[in-house]
């Protein structure tokens, strides 16, 4: 079990008492997300769909790498890693 810092975007901070990031334990991103949701249940509908997958408009990163191109929710995390959750936005 590792402890990682989860960095949250402005839009989600009200759900975590205004914090910019929270510490969560877990060995994979999936466990971290579960841990986050059990601490702050109102985050659940924002982060995962009914099948437990990360929502389409949500990007999750481990040390700034998008987990969709790693092992998705099975991506392993180590102590001190930073998990970032961001909404997908447009550019151009």
């Amino acid at each position, binding site marked *: 079990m590792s402890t990682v810092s989860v*960095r949250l*975007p*402005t*839009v*989600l901070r009200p759900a975590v008492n205004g914090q910019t990031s929270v510490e969560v334990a877990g060995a994979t991103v999936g466990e971290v997300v579960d841990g986050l949701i059990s601490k702050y249940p109102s985050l659940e509908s*924002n*982060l995962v769909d009914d099948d437990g997958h990360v*929502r*389409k*408009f*949500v*990007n999750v*990163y481990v040390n*700034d*790498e*998008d987990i*969709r*191109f790693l092992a998705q929710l099975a991506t392993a995390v180590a102590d001190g890693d930073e998990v*970032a959750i*961001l*909404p*997908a*936005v*447009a*550019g*151009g």
Partner: protein
Amino acid sequence: MAVYSSVLDLIGRTPIVDVSQLSPNPGVRILAKLEGANPGGSVKDRIALAMILAAEKDGTLRRGITIIEPSSGNTGIGLAMICRQRGYKLKIVLPQSVTVERRQVLEAYGVEIISSPGGEGSNGAVRLAQQLADEHPEWVFLYQYANNANPTAHYETTGPEILDDVPDITHFVAGLGTSGTLMGVGSYLKQNKPAVKVYAVEPPAGEQVQGLRSLHDGFVPPVFDKWGGIELLDGKRIVRPSESLTWTRRLVAEAGIFAGISSGAALAGSAKIAEQLDEGTIVFVSSDGAWKYLSTGAYSGSIDEAIEGLGNVIYF
């Protein structure tokens, strides 16, 4: 040198410059494709021209018609240059959070600017443009995020230019905005040289966007889905403003390339990849020059103040 009949003939065929002095790994070359050399000053000239030509060909456009498009600036500028030449009126939905220079260039070309809330970023501009296009069916909505001419322009021009100039390319890195550059160039490279890896970089733009009610308001460009972005890309990474600025300044100081801030982000991503390889040749896209970002204070003084100055400014 030839004499060209129109500034539009200058779009594309941009130069590639070796900036390997910036590579953290002596075994890995890093090459910059300088899209700032396009006449409108950015990579977006290519898609602006391609979208206009496609709409002319299918009969959507005729002289005097009004075009509406959401843009954080560069696509708007490319369209403005072309529309002025060809007799189309142009309205650009521009987030308030872009630099004053982008706004000034659009004004210089006679564009009507419709401001969208800065706090909603580009997503807000897309939403407002969609709404206005629905209300005005007589206007033409090119919609770069879903227009197939966008990735196709890169598939047909940028991709072949890169492979012609750099046949030994192993990695391609570009910023993710509409995803047109990555989808078009990436598809071309993988079809013609399957071993090439394609990586996206993006700013942590969603972190600060205040105007989103929830994450359900997020946006993935239809072009990304249609061109199989998830399967096409080998990786996608956030580059934070401090890294982007540091590498942008290095590009200016050590390679003499007066590049925009997203170029520094692409170079930062390239350097990260270079560290993990034994050898290779990385090509990254320098989307535009520094000119339109000077007012942010990004290019001189302390990095911390520059990050502050960048604030919520959209630079992709």
